[in-house]
């Protein structure tokens, strides 16, 4: 009796001697009816997006008897927790989800998304190759680009006219120009540059020939401490100074807060995205601004922009594979991308649709020019999510811009931290 009890107890203890794993994600099923669950990102101004999505849902439900589509809007800030929970418990997971392209590699490694077969989908041929690349891991497509976002330089035409200035022709000209504006108008930030604004800073690095990391034998190695990268970092962090954008005001800002200062009419320039255009048009800066591509190192060049944007994917554990793929092709297809552009200003990812909206909207020209000049991306590895979560690049920018730390030392420390993450 006592022996039996001991056996039972030790069996229980042994069985418990490893942390829980949810087991390989089930490969799902292919039911043709029931409820299709969709996760999309919530937006500051969600109304127009919701209206377009509702049209797509109605069209889909009419075309498929016995199918309902449940759309949930999730917060961008808490997406990591939501998706992690969904991956760990497939039953609470959606079938189709919108997600940021920088999160892709991590989600795929986490076993979250299924490989997509774009064959037989005629429209897919028109997807811009460089943009489609942001939906690929190891050459396989896991996400269809729903829209692409690139950033360019917004500037206040009234201020530039009054001070008789011209937009900068090279990256080097930005700091002196911004300093001059702030000297003439102390209420204005010369350029609203944020210490946490990674994607505003990276074009400076890329334009100088630097990079976040380079691939070496299938592994990433940080390049943020290379001479070229440091030249770009120096150029950007120079902007966060009392005579341009005071650290107390700017060092804590990310992209949104940086653009917010421009919207409030408190900045003469800012690096902003095409996705910010609508909100700037509804702000104090409305009608008093213009956009040019962020200049490169030499006059006439365009600094490579970060190819941001969101993807639509099908979860690996989905019980309704075919339906999920069909819904993805509807919502991510040309017609609804066009409608999403009209509603939200999201830049389409199909070459022909993009060209068409660009012709009809000349204001998009600087963004299209930036896209065509070539864009860059973050390292496609699941470890990027870790580097992002650990705020390695924002910490580097802030240390130099506000902490008074030596750039060489801070960049070396950031490179070490990135390499540790790449190696894990």
């Amino acid at each position, binding site marked *: 009796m006592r022996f039996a009890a001991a056996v039972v107890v030790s069996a229980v203890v042994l069985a418990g001697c*490893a*942390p829980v*794993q949810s087991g390989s994600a089930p490969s799902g099923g292919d039911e043709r009816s029931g409820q299709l669950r969709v996760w999309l990102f919530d937006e500051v101004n969600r109304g127009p997006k919701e209206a377009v999505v509702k049209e797509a849902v109605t069209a889909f439900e009419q075309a498929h008897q016995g199918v309902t589509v449940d759309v949930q809007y999730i917060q961008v800030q808490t997406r990591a927790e939501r998706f992690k929970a969904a991956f760990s418990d497939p039953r609470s997971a959606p079938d189709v989800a919108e997600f940021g392209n920088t999160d892709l590699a991590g989600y795929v*490694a*986490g076993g979250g998304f299924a490989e997509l077969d774009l064959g037989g989908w005629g429209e897919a041929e028109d997807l811009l190759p460089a943009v489609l690349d942001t939906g690929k891991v190891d050459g396989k497509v896991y996400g269809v680009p729903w829209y692409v976002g690139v950033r360019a330089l917004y500037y206040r035409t009234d201020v530039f006219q009054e001070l008789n200035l011209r937009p900068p022709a090279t990256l080097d000209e930005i700091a002196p120009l911004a300093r001059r504006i702030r000297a003439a108008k102390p209420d204005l930030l010369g350029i609203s540059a944020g210490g946490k604004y990674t994607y505003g800073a990276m074009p400076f690095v890329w334009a100088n020939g630097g990079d976040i990391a380079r691939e070496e034998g299938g592994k990433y190695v940080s390049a943020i401490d290379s001479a070229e990268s440091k030249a770009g970092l120096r150029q950007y962090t120079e902007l966060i100074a009392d005579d341009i954008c005071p650290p*107390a005001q700017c060092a804590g800002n990310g992209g949104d807060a940086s653009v917010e200062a421009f919207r409030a009419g408190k900045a003469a320039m800012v690096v902003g995205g095409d996705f910010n255009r609508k909100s700037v048009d509804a702000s104090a800066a409305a009608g008093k601004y213009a956009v040019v591509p962020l200049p490169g190192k030499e006059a006439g060049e365009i600094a490579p922009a970060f190819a941001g944007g969101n993807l639509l994917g099908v979860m690996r554990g989905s019980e309704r594979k075919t339906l999920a793929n069909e819904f993805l092709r509807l919502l991510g297809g040309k017609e609804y991308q066009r409608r999403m552009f009209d509603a939200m200003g999201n830049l389409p990812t199909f070459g022909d649709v993009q060209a068409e909206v660009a012709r009809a909207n000349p204001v998009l020209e600087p963004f299209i020019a930036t896209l065509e000049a070539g864009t860059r991306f973050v390292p496609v590895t699941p470890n990027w*999510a870790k580097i992002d979560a650990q705020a390695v690049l924002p*910490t580097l920018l802030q240390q130099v811009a506000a902490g008074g730390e030596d750039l060489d030392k801070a960049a070396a420390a950031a490179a070490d931290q990135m390499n540790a993450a790449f190696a894990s």
Partner: protein
Amino acid sequence: MDKSVLRTAKGDGRIAFAYLAPALLVLVGLMGYPIYQLVLISLFDYGQEQVSGGAPLTFLGAGNYATLLSDARFWSVLGQTVGFAAVCVAGTLLVGAALAVLATRVRTWARMVLFLAALGAWATPAVAGSTIWLFLFDANLGFVNEVLGTTGLSWTYDKWMAFGLVAAQVIWCSFPFVLVTLYAGIKAIPGEVLEAAELDGAGAVGTATKVILPLLRPLLVVVTIQSIIWDFKVFTQIYVMTSGGGIAGRNLVLNVYAYQQAFAASEYGLGASIGVVMTALLLLVTLGYLRALRRSGEAL
């Protein structure tokens, strides 16, 4: 203590244990199992891929602890956390005790107002409280800057100013516990005792230090330990008010650091090891404090 008392205590102990067993069972289930899991996870390379079954588990042994303890950043954050918690504990106890004494001296309506204000602060959720404080101390639109005439001053930029502001917020939302507990304690001191002290010729200071304080000792111990544990584990206030640890992470405390480095980055193994280290430290602090008290006075 003579032997017969000890023997009775032993017999009582067995019965007491039987009575405590149900509570013990609940404690083991609610505390023991999570701690067991925490320790277990801290011994593995346990990330999102492992959780969702995409990668095999690797046993690291003390690997996560070695990584952690060899990280210079961890030590500086730990130091910052200890200092921050110490200031918060001292502040909470001082404010709470002072207001408790005040509450025994004022009229009923004033006491009511004091308690209502304190309970309001106590009842405010940490996220809401932190956000409201941020509004009050906003650089451009904040009420405080308007009153002080310092519009444009950022309270959360400078490292020490940011820590000070967060500490004030932490004290604001934790002093009511001390206030209520100590007020009840002071009120529970029998009037005869104070009368006797007065008859024996003790002044106000003598009564306070020689009569009231020793009687309040057990309560003070409880509120101090509680405060240490709470303030050492502060997360929300730092996370919200310094937007995730301040400029370049200079306002990080251990819990936020663990979240950022480990949990947000899906390094659950490493995060668990930080949790274990924190638990061990808190146990040590608590035990050390109890011992010191026992040495300096009667058993509790």
